[in-house]
């Protein structure tokens, strides 16, 4: 059995650290900002997995396009639906 590549061990530790940080954030009481902060940390973790574990950094550029397309199109759904929600009601729930 070969030794684990140091790079992977390092990334694994970083992911665990980010996870710990995210859980800690949940108990801080950021109220409105909490979901934003949580998702930002989660996105950092996700990008780390995508780039290192899924080796986007070593793949051809077309892989970036394919991987990015899914997220880009999802963003279209979120942004334009939000355009409705954020302006639809006369009240803003926080």
């Amino acid at each position: 059995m070969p030794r684990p590549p140091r790079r992977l061990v390092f990334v694994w530790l970083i992911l665990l650290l980010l996870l710990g940080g995210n859980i800690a954030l949940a108990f801080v009481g950021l109220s409105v900002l909490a979901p934003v902060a949580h998702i930002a940390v989660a996105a950092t973790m996700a990008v780390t997995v995508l780039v290192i574990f899924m080796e986007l950094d070593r793949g051809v550029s077309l892989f970036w396009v394919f991987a990015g397309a899914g997220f880009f199109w999802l963003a279209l759904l979120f942004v334009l639906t939000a355009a409705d929600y954020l302006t639809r009601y006369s009240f803003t729930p926080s």
Partner: protein
Amino acid sequence: MSEHVLEKQFVDLAHQSETAELGIWGFIATEVLFLGGLFAAYGFFRYLHPVGVAAAASHTDLAIGTVNTIVLLTSSFFMSWSSLAARDGESRPAGVLMLITAALGIVFLGLKAIEYAEDIHEHLWPGPGFSLSTPDPKSGEVFYFLYWLLTGIHALHLLVGIGAILVIANRARRGVFTRAYHSPVRVVSLYWHFVDVVWIFLFVLIYLPGRAP
């Protein structure tokens, strides 16, 4: 029949491998939208009912959720390692690492099953028997509707992943993968990591809201 045939539409094995990898990336893009659609449903419902959702989410089992996240991240680490080993032509060690990955996946599902049993015991299954002691149990019921749907679909993906890993682990054990031919390991590994990425977001949306005092 040989273990790896060059299909007629490809020029060589590298052409075939890279095409397979492109295919799984495309599939992942569609999965991003599939699961992203569920996240959208969650997100806009939560926008309308921030209080009710947060209150309901605080009734989830954070301990199991956290351990499961660690289990999945660790499984991804082993899967990555396995993929590197396969690329170096070390087929059998790669197979062992895959088995560790699959085992961690099974641990995840086991813990999830325990959590599900708890949830059902606490009447968190949506429908007539649902009960939740928060000021806004109706939003809470919808939160748990999403909880079961999201975690259920994730668990299904994981199950598929475990199955796929066991299949290629068996091939790895027979020494099939070489420096020239290891694209099935890459393909399965990408799928596995993606399921991990989904969980990273799920964990945040399900277990963390409503924890602040």
